[in-house]
């Protein structure tokens, strides 16, 4: 159920004011930093560069896709003014192409491509030995092609996102740190409008126009604790998303109310990692004990809760469902990484156990009939990831990775959406890091 207590902003107007205030704060801080930088002879630039190219394929049920490529380029010319002040401008470009098999009449494949470009600036100011102030302002554009008739820039789900974040980190004498902060962002879908918005008769009556656009704010706190070879991290975040133009639908007769949709989203994550003592691998007489294996063990737990005031009215079955988008999800991820020395190659294995429970959605049979006992939908997924990475020359890393995903649900109505399936993928990659 939607909780008014999490409605931090109460609407787009207040959100806009908050963004302006934080932007002013960040710009002021940046100006101060630049002044400090100009005045200092210590200023230096440390470029960070990371690029990777991948080639892989995906399989869905018994069907094979067509091998496709992906790349990621990240460039950060870090400006280090002095020991305390650092500016991190970042440019990132990421392309992912996933060709999925057949089922369309002429092309034989559906090629899902996304191309992200991101530009942001992050400021890190170590105020003293105990406090670090961080600020971040960025813009991201994602272009998506999911169907044959979508060209770059015309994708229905293209979106742009602007974000602003300010946080403070407190370091304690013990290797413990606590960070708290605020992140606000707006997401806009320039090509997505409600179809009814073009109808003069219904434009005011129905759902709204730019129904997917949101203004969001997250308040978060996280803690990190390093103790010898054990590292503990946990984070708690609460996000409020306001849909400025999406009206709530009535569960009684399907008409649109004046109330706008609001989603509250909270997540809690806790992870523990352990570096266990090295063990030697006695291979060959000339080994001289140089061959060792470092082992990193980890386990991560994540809990997500989403609460929305939006309902759904099923026009096929004449049935209204309240709080339709509410769900709870947990994910437990044990992982292990073996680092083989002196080769410096890594073998990593992780396994996600994911359970998603919808709070209100009712199970439907294969014909779409709702369960008489109003049993709620769940979806369970298991994902296994394997990756082997090894250096091929200085600063170059090659990798082979594969994943297996199994998803099961009590929801049997799969006319629009597949809830029960198996999927596999592999990827070969090479990366360069400086």
């Amino acid at each position, binding site marked *: 159920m939607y909780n008014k207590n999490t409605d931090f902003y109460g609407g787009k107007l207040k959100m806009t004011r908050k963004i302006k205030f934080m932007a002013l704060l960040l710009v002021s801080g940046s100006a101060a930093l630049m002044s400090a930088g100009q005045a200092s002879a210590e200023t230096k630039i440390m470029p960070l560069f990371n690029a990777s190219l991948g080639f892989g394929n*995906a399989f869905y049920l018994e069907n094979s896709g067509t091998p496709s490529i992906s790349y990621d380029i990240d460039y950060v010319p870090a400006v280090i003014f002095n020991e305390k002040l650092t500016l991190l401008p970042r440019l990132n470009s990421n392309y992912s192409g996933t060709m999925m098999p057949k089922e369309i009449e002429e092309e034989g494949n559906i090629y899902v491509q996304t191309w992200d470009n*991101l530009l942001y600036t992050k400021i890190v100011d170590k105020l003293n030995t105990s406090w670090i102030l961080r600020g971040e302002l960025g813009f991201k554009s994602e272009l998506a092609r999911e169907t044959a008739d979508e060209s770059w820039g015309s994708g229905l789900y293209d979106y742009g996102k602007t974000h602003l974040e300010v946080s403070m980190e407190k370091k304690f004498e013990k290797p413990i740190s606590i960070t708290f902060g605020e992140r606000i962002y707006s997401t806009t879908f320039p090509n997505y409008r409600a179809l009814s918005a073009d109808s003069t008769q219904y434009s005011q009556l129905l759902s709204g126009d730019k129904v997917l656009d949101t203004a969001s704010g997250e308040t978060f706190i996280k803690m990190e604790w390093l103790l010898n070879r054990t590292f503990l991290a946990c984070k708690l975040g609460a996000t409020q998303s306001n849909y400025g133009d999406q009206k709530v639908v009535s569960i009684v007769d399907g008409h649109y109310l004046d109330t706008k949709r609001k989603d509250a989203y909270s997540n809690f994550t806790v992870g523990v990692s352990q570096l266990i003592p090295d063990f030697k691998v006695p291979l060959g007489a000339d080994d001289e004990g140089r061959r060792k294996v470092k082992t990193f063990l980890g386990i991560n737990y994540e809990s997500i809760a989403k609460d929305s005031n939006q309902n759904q009215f099923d026009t096929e079955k004449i049935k209204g469902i309240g709080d339709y988008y509410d769900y709870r999800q947990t994910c437990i991820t044990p992982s292990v990484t073996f680092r083989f020395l002196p080769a410096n190659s890594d073998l990593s294995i992780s396994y996600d156990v994911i359970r998603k429970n919808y709070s209100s959605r009712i199970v439907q049979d294969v014909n779409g009939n709702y369960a008489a006992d109003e049993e709620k939908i769940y979806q369970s997924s298991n994902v296994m990831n394997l990756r082997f990475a090894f250096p091929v020359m200085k600063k170059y890393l090659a990798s082979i990775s594969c994943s297996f995903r199994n998803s099961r649900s009590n929801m049997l109505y799969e006319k629009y959406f597949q809830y029960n399936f198996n999927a596999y993928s592999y990827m070969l990659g090479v990366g360069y890091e400086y």
Partner: protein
Amino acid sequence: MKSMHISRRIEAVIAAAIILGTAAKFCLAEEMVAGPLASLRSELKQEVNDSKSREQMETIGVQDLKLGEYQDGKSLTDVHGNRVRLEQYILVPQPNQIEFLTYTKRDTGVDTLKAVYTLNKDIPVDLETNAPDIRRVGELDPNKWDSGALSDITAPEFYAKSIDSRVSNDKGDSVAFQAENGDLYKVPTFTDLFNSTYKYDVIYENSYIKLKTAANSDDITKVRLAHVGGTAGTATLGTLEYYLPKYQSTTNELSKTVTVDPSKRDSIYNANGKYALVDGLTWAHTTCDSYWDGTKVNDINAWSDMTLSQLINKKLDWTNTVNFADGTSLSHRETWIKDDGEQLSLGSFVNMLRSITPDNWAVKLSELNHEGIWTATEFGSRSIDVIWSPSIFVKVATSDLSKNK
């Protein structure tokens, strides 16, 4: 045009994309340990990685939103790999009216199906919200009405006194199916061969098929059916008069009078030689042609030339064309499509039937995706192409009024 829904695969597509793009997750344990011990360069990388992981969380949030769209069936992909968007609404324009509204959007434009049902009485009001509770008007679908021995049947609480439905494109063309002044009659079902089952059905005083074009914003009445005689509430059904365009004229004339026979609404061949309008009978200068997956099937003899193999491979794809005496024609193609995109063949249809019970076959059919395509002489090369799924309009808005109700 065939059309299909493969968006159900999107979950897997997105899953694969995420799997392929998140190699960083493999190094979870290593990074968590190594991060705090890092050198300046590593420390800066750690700052960047922190930002990356937050960015990933927000990307997942957008994926979550997209999944909601796909799960609701609002965004689909057709058989050609093109984007099709569907929006379906239910409105209550008046206390005794229900309106169904669907939009089908392709790259070529938006086509609309709109149907307004005016009921015999007001929709009950929900006591808590004081809003009309259309969930309580379930009997509107005649398939759900009671049937049994004539003396046992009970009249449905709600029925449509009038219907105003229209399919249209965004170029100004539309086809309307309208009916007015409907009353309940006790009619035998098409299984009346055993003379034992009956049901209530609505017969309208006047029904129309009308066209409108971009060039002519006034409706052109192509067909009028007038109900004459009969006694509402009884099994005395009266007759139907067909008014069709007159030969070489723009006015309509009485072309045929037939006895009301509900068996014809199911398009079943009747040994007495009574056919629905679309069943291939030639009246004066008006002719009707029916095609089943490309084969002309105007009369019973059409089937005798087909082998069993040809029959079971036939797609559920019908085109009915009425050639009017004024030289114009109106064509309606209806095809049924499985959720994985193929047009249903008779063979696959039979296989589907084997998995269900006799009681739910109509429901099962209504769950298929329907695509209706209308063409007319007046439209030129343009057409109206609508995908819809609510069974309630399938029955009333498209089929029944084009047949002898």
